[in-house]
């Protein structure tokens, strides 16, 4: 090891490592031999370097040499070599240059290359040593390994971002993709994949495998969950982590289905970790692929544990949302079917009118043809009317079928005016029988909304029926029902139903929308709670208020079509800081 006798003989480095202060450095220590100096410096657990006032490396202790695996001469080239991480070097040079000029101590965080090529984060504290005239003689650098801390910080930040994504209802695919990218950045040189399990197969479904091509991903989607498949199959079935260090040579995996596919894509190792639900079910597997045979380090295992935990939360959340949607649709269907009884009169009426027309016109037609001479023109006219009434009847049936058919939530552009007219047409006879007088105030240029037409009509129907029921006992005034649509002040499309019925106590307004609240004998009381749920799904609001006079007013408002985005917007994918184990 090369030393310059001059630099090592003069001032002595005294003091506790953690507490090196300028004053202590400035203490002129008794002269010691160079070996004594070296012995002390080398005994310091930290990495120590000295720099000339110009910033050139003058000397380093043993620890630096061992860590870097380089000679002093090589280390002197730190300004241009890869000893300091190329991404950090410009900043380091700038800071040191500034300090050299100002004489102020510096503190930098930088990555320094270890003997095996791996970069680790260090905190470098530089302190000037001055002579009795105050001139800087040299700089002492103390380098502290903070890599573990930096890594933990980055992971924590990444985990926080991922959890935010989960909490904000990001689509599952986005969250899983971000998860994979997080690991790929944090762990470097690997490919990640989340595979979901459909236990009805059971089959694997690709959750997210962002960095592998379709030639790898297409064949894996739909693979059966069997031990012969490979590590993921076994991890899922045996409910434990399965590590295939080398798919190529390990006899265990010779017959596995994944082997040829992996090798064809340059993948040698495949680690699979099960993702558990809270109740212990296996929801899927988290796979890490490497292009070299590899086994997981402690750090990587921690990362895997962290990531599978987040994946578990995200998948369970997505599953419960899907279940909730399904339940909503089913409930909406149930109320529609249950209201079938109440709508029987409407159905009968709607269909009986055209039927009656058909029979009357057909009877007339026959008589006209039997006349002497036959009244062909008249017969022709009655035949035409017959066809027209037949069409009317089938339209009614089609509308009713649409209203009562069970459908998943479908997104389309909906004109609320048209939807309202259709629904009121269907319930017209029912309303008329209850002597309800409809008054329409539909805005002319009402913008469309995006949503499920049938579910929205269900809500309107519910409000109409409630209004009609509320006026059942009203005899001293016309049973007026106003339906209004408008674009309100908040740029949302609003529909209002106003009646002059019994109204409600303002104190009960919250209860109104709760399930199983009803003031009616033959009602289950779920109509408004389902309506409320439907409107919420459309990112809208349903509310009610008693009128100043008799009766109540129910309204809902939904964002107009240009604004409404029924599935939440995607957040940016997670970007973790580049705390890598290897040079990029």
């Amino acid at each position, binding site marked *: 090891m090369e030393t310059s006798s001059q630099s090592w003989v003069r001032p002595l480095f005294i003091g506790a490592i953690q507490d090196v202060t300028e004053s202590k450095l400035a203490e002129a220590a008794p002269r010691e031999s160079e070996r004594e100096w070296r012995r002390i410096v080398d005994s310091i657990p930290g990495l120590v370097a000295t720099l000339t006032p110009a910033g050139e490396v003058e000397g380093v202790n043993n620890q630096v040499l061992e860590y870097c695996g380089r000679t002093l001469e090589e280390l002197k080239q730190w300004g241009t070599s890869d000893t300091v991480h190329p991404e950090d070097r410009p900043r380091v040079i700038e800071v040191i240059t500034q300090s050299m000029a100002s004489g102020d101590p510096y503190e930098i965080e930088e990555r320094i290359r270890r003997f095996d090529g791996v970069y680790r984060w260090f905190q470098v504290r530089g302190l000037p040593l001055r002579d009795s005239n105050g001139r800087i003689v040299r700089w002492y650098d103390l380098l502290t390994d903070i890599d573990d801390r930096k890594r933990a910080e980055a992971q924590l930040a990444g985990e926080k971002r991922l959890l935010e994504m989960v909490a904000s209802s990001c689509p599952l695919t986005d969250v899983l993709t971000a998860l994979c990218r997080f690991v790929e950045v944090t762990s470097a040189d690997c490919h990640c994949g989340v595979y979901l399990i459909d236990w009805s197969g059971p089959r694997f479904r690709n959750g997210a495998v962002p960095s592998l091509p379709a030639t790898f991903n297409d064949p894996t989607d739909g693979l059966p969950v069997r031990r012969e498949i490979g590590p993921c199959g076994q991890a899922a079935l045996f409910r434990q982590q399965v590590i295939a260090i080398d798919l190529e040579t390990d006899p265990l995996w010779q017959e596995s289905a994944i082997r040829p596919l992996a090798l064809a894509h340059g993948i040698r190792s495949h680690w699979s970790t099960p993702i558990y639900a809270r109740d212990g079910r296996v929801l899927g597997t988290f796979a890490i692929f490497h292009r070299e045979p590899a086994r997981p380090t402690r750090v990587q295992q921690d990362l895997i544990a962290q990531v599978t935990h987040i994946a578990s939360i995200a998948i369970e959340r997505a599953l419960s949302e899907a279940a909730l949607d399904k339940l909503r649709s089913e409930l909406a269907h149930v109320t529609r079917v249950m209201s079938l009884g109440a709508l029987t009169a409407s159905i009968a009426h709607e269909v009986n009118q055209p039927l*009656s027309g058909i029979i*009357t016109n057909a009877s007339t037609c026959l008589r*006209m043809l039997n006349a002497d001479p036959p009244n062909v023109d008249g017969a022709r006219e009655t035949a035409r009317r017959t066809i027209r009434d037949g069409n009317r009847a089938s339209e009614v049936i089609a509308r009713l079928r649409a209203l009562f058919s069970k459908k998943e939530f479908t997104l389309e552009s909906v004109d609320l005016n048209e939807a309202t007219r259709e629904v009121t047409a269907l319930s017209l006879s029912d309303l*008329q029988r209850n002597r309800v007088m409809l008054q329409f105030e539909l805005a002319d240029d009402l913008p469309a909304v995006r949503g499920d037409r049938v579910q929205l009509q269900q809500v309107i129907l519910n409000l109409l029926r409630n209004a009609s029921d509320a006026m059942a006992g009203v005899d001293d005034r016309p049973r007026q029902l106003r339906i209004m649509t408008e674009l309100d002040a908040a740029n949302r499309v609003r529909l209002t139903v106003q009646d002059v019925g019994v109204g409600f106590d303002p104190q009960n307004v919250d209860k109104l929308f709760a399930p199983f609240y009803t003031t009616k004998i033959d009602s289950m009381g779920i109509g408004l709670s389902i309506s409320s749920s439907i409107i919420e799904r459309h990112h809208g609001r349903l509310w009610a208020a008693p009128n100043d006079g008799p009766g109540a007013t129910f309204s809902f408002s939904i964002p107009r079509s240009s604004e409404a985005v029924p599935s939440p917007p995607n957040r940016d994918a997670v970007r973790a800081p580049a705390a890598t184990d290897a040079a990029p």
Partner: protein
Amino acid sequence: MTRVRSLVSVVDDDESVRESLPDLLREFGFAARAFSSAEEFLESDCVDQTSCLLLDIVMPGGMSGPDLQRELTLRRQEIPIIFISAHADETVRPRLLERGAVACLFKPFSETDLLGALTTALRG
């Protein structure tokens, strides 16, 4: 002597009924007029001429069929009434018949039923 055809008046808010029924009635040999509301019928000059009334039960926004029945009774206009209705509500029938209606036909009704009711109405 010219035989004066009996006038049957149809009161129904449904347009296709007003279109189709009078034609059938004429084929039966009656004279026929149609009105879209009870009020329209009362304001017309047909009230005295009407031998039989085919009357819808539910008519929105104004007098219902039973209301017209009551009104005619008050005016001592003894016009036989045949109610016609698209509402399949059996419970109203007894009450209407009690108050003097000749028949209560639910749509769709056959021409046989209609003719039978008309015959009964005009016989009495």
